């Protein structure tokens, strides 16, 4: 129990910290890396929540895939312009106020909401269940997701492809 608490708080601090770093650091590369850290931290949270499969997906697809893509993009673009991408922020106070406003709204709503009690016991491995669900009840979204990825890829290629 206590281990959970410690772990949670650790991960929480890590997550929030790295998230802040993502949005505050002045170096684009660094913020990408911070993002990777944040995502990994999230994976840790998933582990805490006994969603190992998701944690794996998170690390591989997100922290791995996404970040690579981003870095790749940055590299490409920097080659295009030939100098370091500046990475400054605009109207920080206003942004902060707005963000805090939203946060306040969320907190106000969440606090005092009747929530489900202590987590029930879960089967050791949810992966087959997930797979089953995706292929039965959620097959339609799954199919659509396929189409989605197709068109997204098509679009991405269309945009990224050099002039034809």
């Amino acid at each position, binding site marked *: 129990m206590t281990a959970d608490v410690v772990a949670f708080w650790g991960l929480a601090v890590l997550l929030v910290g790295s998230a802040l770093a993502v949005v505050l650091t002045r170096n684009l590369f660094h913020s990408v890396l911070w993002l990777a850290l944040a995502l990994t931290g999230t994976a840790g949270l998933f582990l805490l929540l006994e969603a190992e499969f998701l944690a794996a997906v998170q690390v591989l697809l997100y922290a791995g895939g996404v970040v690579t893509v981003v870095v790749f993009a940055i590299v490409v673009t920097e080659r295009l312009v030939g100098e370091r991408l500046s990475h400054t922020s*605009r109207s920080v106070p*206003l942004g902060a106020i*707005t963000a805090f*406003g*939203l946060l306040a*709204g*969320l907190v*106000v*709503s969440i606090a005092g909401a009747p929530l489900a009690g202590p987590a029930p016991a879960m089967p050791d491995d949810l992966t087959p269940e997930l797979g089953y669900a995706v292929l039965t009840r959620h097959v339609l979204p799954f199919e659509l997701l396929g189409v989605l990825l197709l068109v997204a890829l098509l679009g991405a290629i269309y945009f990224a492809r050099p002039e034809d």
Partner: protein
Amino acid sequence: MTSHPVVLALWAWLLPAGAFLVLALAAPLRRSGRPAAYVSVLTALTALAASLAAWQGAATLTEPATLLWTWIPQHDGPLATVGVLADADSLVMLVLVALVACLVQVYSLGYLDHEEPAALGRYYLYQSLFAFSMMGLVLAPNFVQLFICWELVGLCSYLLIGFWYRKPAAARAAVKAFWTTKAGDVGLLIGIVLLWRQVGTFEFGAIRVMAEAGAVPLAGLSLITFCLYLGAAGKSAQFPLHVWLPDAMEGPTPVSALIHAATMVTAGVYLLVRTSWLFALTPDVLLIIGWVGAGTALMAAVLACVQTDIKRVLAYSTVSQLGYMMTAIGAGFAAAGFLHLLTHGVFKALLFLGAGAVIHAVGTNDITRMGGLARRMPQTMIVFLVGTLSLAGVPLFAGFLSKEEVLGATWAGGLTGPFVLLVVAAFLTAFYMFRVVFLTFFGAPATPAPATGSGAPGAVHAPHDAPAIMSGPLWLLAALSMVIGVLFTVTHRETPFDMPAWLMPLAVAVSAGGILLAWLTYQRRIVSADALAAAFGPIRRAALANFWVDAVFVAVYRVAFLSLARFIGWVDRYIVDGVLNVLSTWTVSAGDQLRRSQTGRVQDYVYGVALGAIVLVFWFRWLL
């Protein structure tokens, strides 16, 4: 039945209407001039015959006979009717109108022989319209028809005064006449409307019955009768609404004779006569009528003394005589006023036509430019003299008896003050009329001036008597006024009041005095005119300025109407409409302002989403 007076009167009334329609619709005929004139004259003659016949039959009428048609319907019976009301008064008035109208139309054939055909056609078009309207007024069985015709004769007067519309003066005079009388008509209309609510009908007969039965509620009746009187005052040129009549002389002289002497201007008097039983209920208004009438009579007489335009003299004398009639009515003896109306109609028409003949011959209106015409145009001199004598109220002439009756009525009515004024006016009347006579027909012949000022295309060569077509009517009228005069003198009429014995001598003396003074001043030159003028200096100056009445009216028109109008017009354009423009401008600029929020920076768009989200989050929390 067709010979029944009512039917005859109806015929008399409708014939001119026929002529009018023919001339109005058949443009070629109208433009051909003379033929058009003949059509009009012919109908006028027939109308005269018909009305004479009707008058003959009047004796057989025991009580007023009427023919009625619905004019404005309403779910419970007609609201307003039109038709013919035949009784002694209306028929005799009808005869007068028909007679004068007919004579004037004949006379005009000669007087306007120089007009171009189209204009002549227009003239006779108006003439027949006038005849129709005036007869309709006379025969009106109710207030509505009376008012309708009342306005129509006003229209005709407007059209005929402005007949020579190229003359600025004429155009202005026409409009002035219309506005002034219209101001009075507003009163008349209000009076009619108010009365209608009071008694629930427009019919003279019905109202008379109620009035004599005392069924007419007296509350506010004075206001009503006063309003009616306003109308009468406007038409009959009572002070201060008399200003239009002298200017109206800009019209052709026959028109002045017909409309502004014999018939239309007396419509006001006729109205009061017609509704005397109503006015009898409101003595206070009668008092006003009496005083105003007398005052008008005197004022006009004074004004007449200082005029040099022969027609204006006659015009003022008309105003003055109308004042006489009004006073009699004010005294409560409408019959006397009516009698004077009739006689005056005859001899004043005579005077005007005579003056017309003179003007036609000399080519000017200015009496100072005339003189010694007696030898050149004896006939004219004679008939004019007849008219003058009867206007001056010399015995055996038409005017004498009626005027005496008016004086008597005034005295009997207990209006001592007005009586005195009238007596003085009588003296002045005799004076200024003979002033004209002497200056025009006797004394040294003045060099005839070139035809300027007057629109009457007069012959500038040696003046001579008018052609038969013009002199005929003159003689007829002259004879008529003699006959009436003699007739009245021999058959002494019964008057509803007793004449004081000293009245006749007084009247005769007064007029004789007037004549004498004029003779001494302008014929024998014993009394110098200048001395007289000096003696009455202030009055004279005031008179020359028309007692500033015109000035007052002009001021009112300028200030009260034009300036106010300009102000309102400005307000409408720049304030009322301005507000609108401001609003629309604001709307547009509001759009422009809002549009700035679309900065084009994507993150501001995100702000939009974020703010919206925040609001919604809080709101939904709050919805609970």
